[in-house]
């Protein structure tokens, strides 16, 4: 396990950017990703700022090339910050080629960036934000609800994971270069990984839905002077968790067919909650 990655790292020593340069690039990126996020160009400025130092080194003495590079990378960019770091790495490797004078047109560089930022955003949002984040927060919540104070600190595992994964991505992007990354994206492997991560994600969403959506009905009624019949008991016998399940799928289908107007829905949900809570139709359990 330790011997194989050693080679590309060794090879890296012949490359223009050192491990330290790459780390600095990542550190800049990591610090600012979302700070300057604007409706107009989203993460463009952060991308440019993150690369600025390394670009300076690559285009040492070539102010014009540097200027072009800076302008090239202040254009629209948006992807998931962690996995997206791989794009930074590849971009730097392409700029390195370009700086050396090899034939890489601006179109290729920009095309690569804009071509990959979408798919990688999808992957990252699934893995990092859609799977890892809720898992960590859920664990943290369950500890906190039991009064364990560590629960309040567990969320910091999330940025920690991002740093570790993100820097790894940037580095391997730089070391592998464009061809290898494109090839990697095209083999089924990436699809297999996404499928597996989605399995984990969906499994967790199921588990979290079941754990944390807490609604039940307090309705009771009597038939023929019998003991009061508790509707929730009957529902539980039919299908445990039926109400939370209905809740999540009602919202799901609402979003799917009526569009994702989040704020409208949150207000609707609060109104529904107030009404059903007030009249004793639903309660939190």
């Amino acid at each position, binding site marked *: 396990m330790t011997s194989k990655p050693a080679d590309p790292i060794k090879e890296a020593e012949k490359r223009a950017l050192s491990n330290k340069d790459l780390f600095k690039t990542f550190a800049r*990126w*990591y610090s*600012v*990703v*979302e*700070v300057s996020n*604007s*409706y*107009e160009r989203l*993460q463009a*400025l952060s991308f*440019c*700022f993150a690369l*600025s130092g390394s670009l300076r080194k690559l285009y040492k003495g070539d*102010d014009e090339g540097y200027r072009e590079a*800076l302008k090239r990378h202040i254009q629209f960019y948006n992807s998931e910050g962690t996995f997206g770091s791989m794009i930074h790495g590849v971009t730097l490797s392409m700029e390195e080629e370009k700086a050396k004078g090899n034939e890489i047109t601006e179109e290729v560089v920009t095309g690569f960036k804009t071509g990959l930022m979408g798919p990688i955003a999808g992957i990252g*949002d*699934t893995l*990092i934000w*859609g799977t890892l984040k809720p*898992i960590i927060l859920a664990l*943290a*919540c*369950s500890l*906190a*609800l039991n*009064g364990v*104070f560590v629960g*309040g600190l567990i*969320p910091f595992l999330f*940025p920690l994971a991002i740093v570790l994964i*993100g820097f790894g991505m940037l580095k391997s992007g730089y070391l592998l270069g464009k061809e290898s990354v494109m090839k990697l994206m095209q083999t*089924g492997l990436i699809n*297999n990984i996404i499928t597996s991560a*989605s*399995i984990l*994600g969906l*499994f*967790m*969403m*199921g*588990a*979290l*839905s*079941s754990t944390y*959506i807490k*609604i039940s009905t307090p309705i009771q009624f009597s038939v023929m002077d019998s003991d009061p019949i508790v509707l929730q008991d009957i529902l539980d016998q039919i299908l*445990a*968790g039926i109400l939370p399940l209905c809740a999540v*799928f009602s919202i799901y289908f609402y*979003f799917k067919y009526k569009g994702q107007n989040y704020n409208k829905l*949150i207000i609707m*949900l609060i109104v529904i*909650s*107030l009404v059903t*809570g007030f009249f*004793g139709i639903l*309660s*939190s*359990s």
Partner: protein
Amino acid sequence: MNLLVSILCGFLYFLGTSRIGYGLSTATGSPLFYGLILGLVYGKLTEGLIIGATIQLIYIGIINTGGNMPADQSLAGIIAIPIALQTDLSTELAVGLAVPFGVLGVFLDQIRRISNSYWISQAEKHAENLNQRGIFNCAITYPTILLFFITFIPVFIITLVGADTVTFIMDAMPQGIIDGFSVAGGILPALGFAIILLIIGKRELMPYFFIGFFAVAYLGINTMAAAVFGTCVAAIVLFNSINQKKELS
């Protein structure tokens, strides 16, 4: 409320929304973290943690795809938690207080992202002049200073005067409404999960959602157990598909 606490709150909200450090705000801006800090401040650690976690759960599944924040967990938490601890509000009412601010916070974020357009146009000029420092300032210094005003001031004010207003209102709140908020607290986490389903829920993988759901409902496993089993199953599927590919080629 105590002036110092209000300053702390304003500062915590600024910190939690500053976004310095990708994903760091998920921790520094989490109601959970706010609950821990404010619980310590008020000497009510357990209460703080529980209220924090309860509010956190509402926003547990939320993703800011494309940078769009559907709800602001930080504002929800930083307003509701101190007021609740100060006035001994029940967790249900704290939720009721939190949710509207979760909605309002979105507007603050929109102001931020609109104003950021200005800095990028500035940064382009600095790029032209090879002014790295200038780019740096546009990327982080100016947006952060501006953010400080957008975030610190409102939270400072609201927490300073909010507690009394809230006590007044809450005293008059009928039980029915309280029940309603408690239902809201129970139902709102569904929002985030539904959104994630939209993103990753390929039809052919949906059975895994149901297995996870009913593993909790019928076998009573907890979140961590689900994570462990889910990871194992996902790993098996992954290794299988890789193996299969090998055999085919």
